[in-house]
C-alpha cells in the first residue's frame, strides 16, 4: 500500500470544521450526476434547490419555519450523542410533545389566556420527555438497547396520534375529517414577522442554541456528559454516574423534541393532523452530526437541511422532480460527512516503503 493511515494523536480542529464543507461539496457533485440520470439540467436543478427557495423575503422566512423543529430536536439529540446515548426516537417524542402539549387546548378550547401558550409549551416538553423516559428507564433498569426501544416507540406514538385524530380529538364541526379543531389565537404561536409564517418557535430554537452552548461549556453536567461520552471509565473514577447521564440525555432530548412538536402544531400547522412531521425527528439526526454536535454548528446545519426541504418542494413544482430527492440528498450528505471524518481522526501518509518500491 502506498498510502498509510495513521491515527492522529489529537483531533485536527481545522478538519472538524472543514469536513462538513467537503461533505456538502461532494454531495453537490454527486447530485449533478443524479440530476443528469433523472434527465434534468444539473445547473437548473441546483438553482431550483439552493437559490430559488430563498430568493425572496418570504422564502427566507420559510427557511426558519422549517429549520426551527430541526434545530430544536438536533440540539437535544446532540447532547445524547456526545454522551453515547443513541436516542433515535425523536420523531415519536415530537409526536407525543404535540399531543400532550395541545391536550390542554383540545379539552379546554374556550380558554382565552396569555398563559395558555406557555402552558402548552411546558406540557409539550413534558410529553416529549415522558416518552423519552421510557427508553431511559428500560436502559438504566434492564439495559435494553435505547436505539431499538426509542425507535419502536416512534411507531407507537404515531399510531396513538392516529387513534386520537380519528376518534376523540376529531373536530365536532369538521365534516368527519380526521383533524382536530383549529387552534384559537391564544393557543397559536405568535408570528414574528407580518406576512410570513415565522413564529415564536424560532426564538425558542435560538434560545435552545445559546442555552445548550452555555450548558455544554460552562456547567458541571456538560462536563460530565463530555467525559462519560469520550472516556466512560475515567468518568466512573471521577464519580460521575453513567445512569444519571443516560437519564439526563434522554429527558433533555425528549423535551426538546416535544417542544419542536408543539411548536409545529401551534405554529404552521395550527391543528392536530394524522401526520404532523415530514420526518423532522430523523433529519435532525443528520443535522446534529453535520453541526458537529456543537450548538452553533447545529444552527447552520439546521438551516441547510431546511433548505433541502424547500429546495425539494421547488424542484418538484418547477422541474417535476420527485420529493424523495430531498431524502436522498440528506442521506448522501451524512454519508459523505462520515466518510470525510476519517480526515479528522487519521492522517494519511505516503508510505516510504511504497515510495522506494516505485
Amino acid at each position, binding site marked *: 500500500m502506498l498510502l498509510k*493511515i495513521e*491515527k492522529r494523536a489529537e483531533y485536527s480542529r481545522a478538519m472538524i470544521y472543514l469536513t462538513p464543507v467537503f461533505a456538502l461539496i461532494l454531495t453537490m457533485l454527486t447530485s449533478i450526476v443524479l440530476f443528469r440520470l433523472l434527465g434534468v439540467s444539473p445547473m437548473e436543478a441546483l438553482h431550483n434547490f439552493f437559490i430559488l427557495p430563498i430568493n425572496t423575503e418570504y422564502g427566507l422566512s420559510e427557511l426558519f419555519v422549517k429549520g426551527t423543529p430541526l434545530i430544536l430536536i438536533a440540539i437535544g439529540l446532540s447532547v445524547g450523542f456526545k454522551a453515547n446515548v*443513541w436516542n*433515535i426516537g425523536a420523531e415519536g417524542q415530537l409526536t407525543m410533545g404535540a399531543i400532550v402539549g395541545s391536550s390542554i387546548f383540545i379539552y379546554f378550547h374556550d380558554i382565552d389566556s396569555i398563559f395558555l401558550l406557555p402552558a402548552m409549551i411546558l406540557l409539550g416538553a413534558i410529553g416529549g420527555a415522558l416518552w423519552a423516559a421510557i427508553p431511559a428507564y*428500560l436502559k438504566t433498569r*434492564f*439495559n*435494553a*438497547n435505547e*436505539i*431499538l*426501544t426509542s*425507535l*419502536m*416507540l*416512534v*411507531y*407507537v406514538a404515531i*399510531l*396513538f396520534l*392516529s*387513534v386520537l385524530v*380519528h*376518534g376523540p380529538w376529531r373536530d365536532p364541526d369538521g365534516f368527519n375529517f380526521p383533524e382536530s379543531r383549529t387552534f384559537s389565537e391564544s393557543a397559536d404561536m405568535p408570528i414574528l414577522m407580518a406576512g410570513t409564517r415565522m413564529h415564536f418557535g424560532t426564538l425558542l430554537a435560538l434560545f435552545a442554541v445559546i442555552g445548550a452552548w452555555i450548558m455544554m461549556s460552562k456547567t458541571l453536567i456538560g462536563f460530565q456528559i463530555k467525559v462519560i461520552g469520550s472516556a466512560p471509565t475515567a468518568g466512573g473514577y471521577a464519580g460521575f454516574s453513567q445512569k444519571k447521564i443516560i437519564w439526563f440525555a434522554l429527558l433533555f432530548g425528549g423535551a426538546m423534541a416535544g417542544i419542536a412538536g408543539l411548536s409545529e402544531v401551534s405554529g404552521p400547522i395550527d391543528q392536530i393532523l394524522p401526520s404532523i412531521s415530514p420526518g423532522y425527528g*430523523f*433529519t435532525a*439526526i*443528520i443535522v446534529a*452530526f453535520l453541526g458537529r454536535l456543537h450548538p452553533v454548528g447545529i444552527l447552520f446545519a439546521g438551516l441547510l437541511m431546511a433548505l433541502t426541504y424547500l429546495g425539494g418542494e421547488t424542484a418538484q413544482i418547477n422541474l417535476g422532480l*420527485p*420529493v*424523495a*430527492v*430531498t*431524502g*436522498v*440528498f*440528506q*442521506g*448522501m450528505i*451524512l*454519508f459523505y460527512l*462520515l*466518510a470525510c*471524518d*476519517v480526515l479528522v*481522526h*487519521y492522517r494519511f501518509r505516503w508510505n516510504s516503503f511504497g515510495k522506494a518500491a516505485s
Partner: protein
Amino acid sequence: MSGFDWIVPVILTVITAATPLVFAAIGELVTEKSGVLNLGVEGMMLVGAVTGFVTATVTGNYFLAVALAAVAGGFMAFLFGILTLSLMANQVATGLALTLFGVGLSALMGQEFVGEPVASLSKLNIPGISDIPIIGPIVFGQDGLVYLSFVMVALVSWFLYKTKAGLILRAVGDSHDAAHSIGYSVIGIRYMAVIFGGAMSGIGGAYLSLAYTPMWAENMTAGRGWIALALIVFATWKPGLVLVGAYMFGGITILQLHAQAAGLDLPSQVLSMLPYLATVLVLVLISKDQSRIRKHAPACIGKIFHPAA
C-alpha cells in the same frame, strides 16, 4: 374438522409475515458475528423491496427480481463497509445514515411504481401432495423463498459452527486483534460478512414487495428492519432461535389482523402497535440477563479495527 378451517390460512399468513424477518435477521446475524453492527437493515430492506418490485414489474422475471434485490442490498452494505471498515467511521452513525439514505433512495426509485399491483410470487404446488389437508398447503404449498429462508438458517448455522471459515469469522468478531496477528484479513472477512448481511436484507425486502403485499409503497418495511435487529438480541446470536423469534413476531403481526376480523372492540391502530410493543417487551426480558448477553454477543461488535502495523 370444519371448526379448524381457520388454522391453515392463519399458519400460511404467519409464514409470509415471518419470512422477511428470517432473511434480514439471519443475514445481519452473520454481519454481527464478524464484529460489525450494521443498523442499516431497514434501509437495505427498502432498497431490496423496491429493486425486486421494479424488476418484477418490468421484466416479469421473479428469479431475476430476487437476485437483483440481493445485489442491491449487498451494494448498500458495501457502501456501509467502505465507510466503517475502510474509512473507519462510527458504525452506529453510519448504519443510521444507511437507513435514512435507503428510505430516500427507495422512494426515488419506486416513484413511478407506487400503487401498481404485481402478481404474487408463485407457490410451489405439487398436484396431489399439496392437496393433503393441513400439511399439504403448509409444507408443500409455499413459494420458493420460504424454503430458501429455512435453507439459509440451516446453512448459516452449519457454516458458523461446523466449518473452519465460520470459526475464523467468529474469531474475527470476538477478537480482531488476535485474528489479525495470526494472519487473517479482518477487514476482508468483515466485508464479506457485511455484504452477505446486505444481500439477505435485500431478499427480505423483496419478499415484502413480491409476496407479503405484492406492491410497492414508500416505507413499506414499517420498522421490520429494526425488529430484525431486535430479533438477534432475542436469539442471543443463535441462528435457530432467530427462526423461532421471527415466527413468533410473524404470529403477533397476524394476530392483530385476526383480532380485528374477530370484531375485537379496539381501534385498529391499537392492535397495530402490538408488534412494536412486543419488540420492546422482548428486548427488556432478554437484556435483563446481562451475563447471558455478554456470553453470546460477539466481543468486538461495533468496535473499529485499525491494524497497528
